[in-house]
């Protein structure tokens, strides 16, 4: 660089703020950093993150991990089929929960879409309703439903279904709002009723989006279905927590591996299906 000091000073005099932020801004930045670091240190202290504790924990973690090898192989059909049943049950819980959620969410989502429900007050109430449902974590719903319906898959299905109603209704109604109005007007001008306008003008536009949303959420529900089992809502999670509390770590690890394999397979399959659906022919059968 070949600028002289006088050039630099002249530039500083012209646009001082280009060289240094004003005092108030610098103080605000400093205060934010102090607050942030302070909170971080307080948490370390409050939760007793001593190096000693981490070190001891690492030792025990290694101990637990060592049970991974050699993996436990079930040597009789009765034990293995119990595990397979558990996996199947988790899949079924996720499937039923997703499907039931979608069935209830669809009509509710129509209420929240601007291009279908023109009554602003009703639409806003519907949207606030979705938010209220979504505020309940699936796990909390599962605990509530277990109290009401007892242990087993039923509360798991209901927990997923109810929490998905909120999510699906929100996502569906947004998909519906993102459709073009031109096909709808085309159907209307041919003498189509309001329902026919929705069926022929809007549904073909949103169906692929809805199917894709369903598949994504099915995947994620297979994962949360595992956790629901741990609190007693049926499925493979139930077996897993049982093995862990009985210190059968070899078996627990094998179950964890099977869960990972299942989730991976579902992700892969639904990815394939999604691709097919987006390009699918979609006409009157």
């Amino acid at each position, binding site marked *: 660089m070949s600028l002289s000091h006088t050039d630099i000073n002249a530039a500083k005099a012209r646009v001082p703020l280009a060289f240094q932020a004003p005092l108030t801004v610098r103080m605000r930045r400093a205060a934010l950093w102090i607050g942030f670091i302070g909170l971080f240190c307080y948490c370390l202290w409050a939760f007793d993150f001593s190096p000693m504790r981490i070190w001891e924990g690492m030792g025990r973690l290694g101990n637990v991990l060592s049970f991974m090898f050699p993996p436990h192989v079930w040597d009789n059909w009765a034990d293995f089929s119990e595990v397979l049943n558990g996996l199947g049950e988790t899949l079924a819980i996720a499937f039923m929960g997703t499907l039931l959620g979608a069935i209830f969410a669809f009509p509710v989502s129509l209420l929240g879409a601007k291009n279908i429900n023109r009554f602003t007050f009703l639409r806003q109430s519907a949207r606030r309703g979705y938010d209220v449902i979504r505020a309940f974590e699936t796990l909390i719903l599962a605990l509530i439903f277990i109290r009401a319906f007892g242990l087993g898959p039923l509360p798991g299905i209901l927990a997923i279904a109810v929490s998905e109603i909120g999510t699906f209704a929100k996502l569906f109604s947004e998909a519906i709002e993102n459709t073009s109005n031109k096909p709808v*007007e085309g159907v209307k001008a041919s*003498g189509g009723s309001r329902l*026919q306008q929705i069926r*022929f003008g809007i549904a073909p536009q949103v169906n692929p989006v809805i199917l894709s949303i369903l598949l994504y959420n099915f995947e994620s529900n297979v994962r949360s279905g595992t956790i629901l089992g741990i609190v007693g809502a049926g499925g493979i999670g139930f077996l897993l927590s049982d093995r862990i509390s009985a210190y059968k770590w070899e078996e627990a690890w094998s179950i964890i591996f099977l869960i990972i394999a299942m989730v991976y397979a579902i992700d892969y399959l639904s990815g394939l299906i999604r691709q097919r659906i987006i390009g699918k022919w979609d006409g*009157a059968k």
Partner: protein
Amino acid sequence: MSSDLSLQKVSRHFGETRAVDDVSLDIRSGQFVGVIGRSGAGKSTMLRLINRLVDPTEGAILYEGRDITALKGKALREWRRDCAMIFQQFNLVERLDVLTNVLIGRLAEHGFVSSMAMRFSDEERAMAIQALDRLDLVPQALQRAGTLSGGQQQRVAIAKALVQQPKIMLADEPIASLDPANATLVMDGLKTINREDGITVLVNLHTLDTARAYCDRIIAMRQGRVFFDGTAAQLTDDVVRDIYGLEGLREFNEAVTSTSVHSSVLA
């Protein structure tokens, strides 16, 4: 009967804008009527009033003596079926195949269950195929509408209008987004239908040449009012200058040279 479609002092206001202002017209069955005028003159609004996509602020529209501005529910849907509408942007359902798009023209005949299941009878399907055949689109019948060219999509829209078995066909700038070759196909299609089926055609056009080449009668609108109503021969340069203004005429002539179409069926 001398006037089958009759607009009587029809107005439509949008806030301060008088989109259509005190328009009275009588249109006999079987006429091929072109509506011209600058952008914003109220041409689209007039067609949409007839199809009842918008309601008039004042006045009445009569068809064969029946007031269609008072229609509701099923009767309204049947009226919309009777006056098929063709849009500049085609307004097809792009994700559905061509055949289903044409079958949408049959919806006014369908109840809840059959239409929710997208069920159509073999007779209706045959009707749709025949309509597509008249517009040379049978090979594309099972293709998705969105994959067709603009000209093909507009002809699908005409086929859909045909299966409605309409009495009137309203076309809102049907060739404004098409190249000249496709525009000719679409205009010829409308003309053929007008002559062979005796369907009244009311078409908004943005080029004077096209209007002159195809229309029995030309109506010019300006600021929501009917400014000229007569044959192509009566539409002299002086009248045209009045319709479009000097500025407009220059723009207009440019538009004419770029996208006008000449009739090949009239000859």
